[in-house]
């Protein structure tokens, strides 16, 4: 049937056009219907290649369905639906269009069966999502969006170069296992790594996400990094370097998250931390580890979305998002508080919440494969994520000192979207088999054995105890209005400064050289003038060439006159 050939990004792109022609309730209805219809359609599609054509000498495969891609396909539909419901109150066409196209691009990327199609959607992801940042319409968001766009496009360009190398080496564009034994492999890894927020390349995320609109960040947190995780899982399973990169990603952001004041930036750092767990899983590369990485990506989209939604609700209702300005909101925003705590419990991997059933797979795989130190780092990161995302976020927003703000719970559509996400977090936590049945491999893993549950609960409760103890002792760093330098300082401050200095030196040297040249020239000129002076009195005085020109003119004029007379 021809219906089978409709790739999932298509309904989203068509939906965007219909959306532009409608308004009001009809537009809202279309926006909700698109992901639902598309998800139903996707659920009926069997595995395999459904769309393929030849382009120049290469086979392009814009639509390929397998176990790995369909997992991301489903979660992107869920994320799109939740995000759309969350932003139903908006009357901003730019954001609505950008969000629909963005979700469609993400779906296009995960179902791309060749590198060229992947590249096209890779760039589309950047160009559509940046409008969610610019939609904040502040100068800050404009600049942050620009930096975001430059880095994302850079990633795309590197991907394209890597693709060209790959096509030259292998004479095919098919997107499958790539590995690290060629230049193409490394280039494509760098491109994926930038979008995946590898250390040093991570600042686009912490820079731009907190500057996006309250609703925009919910979309942003779901798609870009997860597309990168998907691509890594397809192209580099078992690449050992990813284990170390991922472990670094789990650990370093938590330090920044503890001292960061902007609560959405705290969540951005913890997003990198969570992606780190997935990258470790992909690097280990066993069936259990890949399952862990993919299912953690699935869960992370939902619980991170929930946390960003709850902070977006706070921003929407109070206009503030800094920990130093907030506090005591549980009094008037009880529903948001509870939903936020569900998200916090999920990201902290409490038993019976969704994070637990996926994160423990990666940890177990690390131990099984003998990565002892990596396992210790992951354990530390687990305690740390509970500390900054699980406790700090709800504590400073909803409890802590009373800020005096008495904002109400957000509009119903926001609450409803958060409730869906929270329900999914708990449902997956209680009944993980539903999630496991979708996974690429069948490992028969059971997260709920006494050892795991006890170990994780002990770890979390004593982390909470540490928080309480530090707070009572007054050792906990207070929320301060501040900026903390991160690697982006290099390209936002150091490099411009260095360039400015370099250019000023260059200009100075240029000026001195030119001055010296002119001095030389002048002295030559006056030297010749003096010589001329001595030779001639009438024809050449101080300005030999000038006087000569004058005398030539006089002679010519004389000729002219003579011709008239004749």
């Amino acid at each position: 049937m021809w219906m089978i050939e409709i790739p999932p990004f298509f309904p989203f792109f068509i939906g965007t056009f219909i959306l532009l022609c409608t308004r009001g309730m009809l537009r809202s209805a279309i926006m909700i219907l698109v992901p639902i219809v598309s998800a139903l359609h996707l659920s009926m599609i069997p595995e395999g290649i459904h769309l393929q054509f030849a382009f120049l000498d290469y086979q392009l495969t814009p639509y390929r369905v397998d176990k790995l891609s369909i997992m991301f396909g489903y979660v992107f539909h869920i994320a799109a639906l939740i995000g759309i419901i969350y932003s139903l109150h908006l009357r901003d066409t730019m954001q609505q269009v950008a969000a629909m196209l963005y979700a469609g691009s993400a779906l296009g990327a995960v179902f791309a069966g060749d590198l060229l199609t992947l590249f096209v959607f890779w760039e589309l992801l950047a160009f559509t999502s940046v409008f969610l940042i610019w939609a904040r319409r502040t100068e800050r968001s404009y600049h942050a969006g620009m930096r975001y766009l430059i880095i994302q496009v850079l990633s795309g360009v590197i991907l394209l170069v890597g693709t060209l190398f790959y096509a030259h080496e292998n004479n095919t564009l098919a997107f499958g296992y790539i590995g690290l034994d060629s230049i193409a492999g490394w280039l494509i890894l760098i491109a994926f790594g930038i979008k995946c927020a590898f250390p040093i390349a991570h600042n686009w995320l912490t820079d731009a996400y907190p500057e996006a609109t309250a609703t925009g960040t919910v979309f942003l947190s779901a798609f870009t990094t997860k597309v990168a995780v998907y691509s890594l899982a397809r192209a580099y399973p078992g690449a050992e370097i990813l284990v170390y990169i991922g472990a670094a990603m789990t650990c370093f952001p938590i330090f920044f998250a503890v001292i960061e004041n902007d609560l959405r930036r705290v969540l951005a750092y913890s997003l990198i931390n969570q992606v780190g767990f997935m990258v470790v899983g992909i690097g280990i590369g066993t069936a259990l580890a890949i399952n862990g990485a993919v299912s953690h990506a699935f869960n992370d989209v939902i619980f991170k979305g929930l946390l960003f939604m709850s902070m977006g609700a706070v921003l929407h209702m109070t206009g503030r998002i800094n920990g130093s300005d907030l506090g005591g909101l549980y009094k008037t925003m009880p529903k948001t508080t509870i939903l936020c705590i569900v998200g916090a419990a999920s990201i902290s991997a409490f038993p019976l919440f969704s994070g637990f059933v996926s994160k423990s797979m990666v940890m177990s795989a690390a131990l099984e494969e003998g990565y002892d130190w990596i396992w210790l780092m992951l354990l530390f990161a687990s305690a740390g994520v509970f500390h900054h995302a699980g406790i700090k976020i709800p504590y400073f927003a909803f409890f802590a000192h009373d800020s005096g703000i008495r904002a109400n719970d957000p509009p119903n559509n926001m609450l409803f979207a958060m409730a869906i996400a929270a329900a999914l977090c708990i449902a997956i936590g209680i009944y993980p088999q539903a999630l496991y049945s979708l996974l690429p491999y069948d490992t028969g893993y059971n997260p709920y054995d006494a050892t795991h549950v006890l170990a994780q609960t002990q770890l979390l409760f004593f982390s909470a105890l540490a928080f309480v103890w530090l707070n009572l002792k007054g050792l906990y760093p207070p929320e301060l209005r501040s900026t903390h330098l991160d690697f982006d300082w290099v390209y936002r401050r150091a490099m411009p400064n260095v360039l400015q200095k370099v250019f000023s030196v260059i200009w100075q040297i240029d000026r001195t050289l030119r001055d010296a040249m002119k001095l030389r020239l002048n002295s030559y000129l006056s030297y010749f003038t003096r010589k001329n002076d001595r030779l001639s009195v009438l024809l050449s005085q101080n300005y030999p060439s000038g006087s000569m020109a004058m005398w030539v003119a006089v002679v010519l004029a004389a000729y002219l006159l003579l011709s008239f007379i004749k």
Partner: protein
Amino acid sequence: MKDEKKYLFDDPKNVKRLLHILYVCCALLVILDFVIHRHTMHDWEKVWAFYPIYGFIGCVVLVIVATWMRTFLMRSEDYYDNPNETSVNNDALSDKGLNKKGAHHVDD
């Protein structure tokens, strides 16, 4: 909760109660260590109360290191917005002055 002025945690007693619940839970979890036989996969896990100790110490170290990081990473809130605020940028400004001089000095 219904009272306009008094909310759940406005009463210090409730905060105390919550903390006591936490302490009791922590104690129970350590005791459970003796009751439940865990099949460990690694030697470190056999250390007595490995997870509680690791969790506690890990978090304390995390916070102390993060607080120390503030001493050299913290800048004012509008650090990036205001290019002529810090000492680094005063240099940059004077450089700019120089640049201007240079730029205007193309030809007399």
